[in-house]
């Protein structure tokens, strides 16, 4: 049963990939029909690596994360495979996945205020993770929690630990959630829009904190975000999603300096940049993402794409343009420059 128990933690040496997602599909049954939120998605992560999945809201990035954790809403279903050190998470029973959650894969969410239980003290909410997975005594667990809270820069944790979430600011709540996720030193931390709900100044603190912790604990992070600023400082690889599909995936530098998909390029142009003072232009992407209920045939981005041509009425396949750089576009991106 406890194949993922902490005694067998050093699974990284087995040589298997940390996470391998194959042909992942997430489908929601709604009153108006089936909605395919994620469509045939493939990607993989090496141990210690940080992958950022980037896209607009509704692109399926959050559903990808939830599918991996088996936390989809009741009307959602995940198909395909998501292998964690070789074992398919999607096929696990409730007991098996609960051994993985919190211990090997932790997750932090977008809105820290609603993600903490308002009726329990911070202490109770943190202790239960260690008591559940490490069978620690209350006393030992408490020491570990205090240590962890210090790591995420919560001042006066001895006192703070007895407080309720509403007594914390939003940024502190997110720190608590990060600390909570790292308590068992998971191999993978899934962070779903960890900075979106926060004030800009606080966003920076959280970004810095995550960078520090990543170095310190050597945790792999699957970062779900639409904020390319977060990606730049944190990610090793970037995967861009559009309408439930991969459109481009490459090492972070390639994405930033040599984007090949028109959508990626448009995303980059849409980011306001402080280093270009003066007559810089921000270019929002015209139009809206397509309705997932009835996707048009062909490339889903073609209505908003400046470079679309006849061939785009057919769906382009994903191809590897250069090693490590996958692209779903008939063009190879040279025209973008």
């Amino acid at each position, binding site marked *: 049963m406890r194949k993922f128990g902490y005694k067998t933690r050093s699974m990284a040496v087995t040589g298997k990939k940390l996470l391998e997602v194959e042909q992942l599909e997430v489908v929601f049954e709604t009153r108006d029909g089936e909605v395919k939120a994620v469509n045939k998605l493939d990607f993989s992560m090496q141990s210690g690596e940080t992958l950022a999945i980037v896209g607009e809201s509704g692109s399926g990035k959050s559903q990808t994360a939830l599918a991996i954790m088996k936390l989809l809403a009741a009307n959602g279903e995940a198909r395909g495979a998501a292998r964690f050190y070789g074992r398919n998470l999607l096929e696990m029973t409730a007991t098996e996945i609960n051994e993985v959650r919190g*211990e090997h894969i932790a997750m932090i969410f977008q809105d820290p205020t609603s*993600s903490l239980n308002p009726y329990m003290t911070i202490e109770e909410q943190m202790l239960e993770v260690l008591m559940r997975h490490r069978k620690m005594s209350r006393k030992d667990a408490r020491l570990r929690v205090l240590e962890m809270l210090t790591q995420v820069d919560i001042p006066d944790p001895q006192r703070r630990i007895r407080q309720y979430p509403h007594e914390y600011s939003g940024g502190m709540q997110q720190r608590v959630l990060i600390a909570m996720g790292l308590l068992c030193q998971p191999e993978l931390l899934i962070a779903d829009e960890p900075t979106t709900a926060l004030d800009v100044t606080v966003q920076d603190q959280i970004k810095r904190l995550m960078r520090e912790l990543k170095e310190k604990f050597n945790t792999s992070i699957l970062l779900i975000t639409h904020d390319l600023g977060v990606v730049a400082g944190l990610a090793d690889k970037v995967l861009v999603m559009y309408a439930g599909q991969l459109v481009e995936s490459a090492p972070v530098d390639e994405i930033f300096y040599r984007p090949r998909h028109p959508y990626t390029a448009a995303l980059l142009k849409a980011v306001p940049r402080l280093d270009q003072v003066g007559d810089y232009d921000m270019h929002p992407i015209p139009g809206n993402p397509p309705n997932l209920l009835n996707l048009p045939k062909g490339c889903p981005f073609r209505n908003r794409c400046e470079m679309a041509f006849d061939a785009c009425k057919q769906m382009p396949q994903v191809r590897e343009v250069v090693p490590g750089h996958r692209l779903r576009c008939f063009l190879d991106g040279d025209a973008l420059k």
Partner: protein
Amino acid sequence: MLNYSLRRLAWAFPTLLLLITVAFFMIRVAPGGPFDSEKNLPPEIQQNLNAKYHLDEPLVQQYFRYLGQILRFDFGPSFQYRDWTVNQLIARGFPVSLSIGALAMLLSFTLGVGIGTMAALRQNNVLDHGLMGFAMLGISIPNFVIAPLLILVISVYWGWLPSGGWEWNWRNMVLPVITLAMPITAYIARLMRGSMIEVLHSDFIRTARAKGLSEFTVIRRHAMKPALLPVISFMGPALAGLITGSVVIEKIFAIPGIGSFFVQGAMNRDYTLVMGVVIFYGALIILFNFLVDLIYAWLNPRIHYK
């Protein structure tokens, strides 16, 4: 927390005063006095009786006299049961009403919370639809319909339990308690189901699941308390419902509780008795509401840490 409690308590007094005032004046403007039914009384005796009960004084004076009495917890003599004071009648009836009411309250709370939770966990399942269908029955069928039917089947046809009367004996309590508890159970079950479903959809439950806690632990540790809050708030109205129901139940099962006295008193224009019961139950509801507020605040950190 102390501050909050005192503030809530402070509100109980104007409420109680209003209750007493309305009851007092409503009764006094009523046409017909308590001794009208005894037609053969000579006028001088009638006058003496009125004087004895201060019915000849100006209304305002009577009102303040009555307030003074109430402050000493004295509801005065009963007009109808000549040898009894209202206090004695209440003291006699209350233990009976209380035991049935408390049992019914306990039963409906545990059963309602249990059924509601089960239905929520099996949302839109056969079990859920079945349980909620039953709950709807419990709400829709008045207890004065259920009680006679139960008596007809269980007592008259099968002869398992007594059809009424009162002794301190569980056999006499089963049917009254069940009929009294039924609608409240149904309400609580529906309330609990709704709030549990809502809580289970909240973000912090997703966090709890992401920690690897078992579904049972998630519900027990994380979902139960917030889901119970609406049920706790309902306990005040639930008590009022129970008391109202007890009037009917005590009549049907011939139970000598306060409800029976009240109905008798109302029919006979027994002013002091009726007012005594209204004020007594009113005070009970107010007190209970106060306790419910305290429990609610205690369960909800966002209130008690203010």
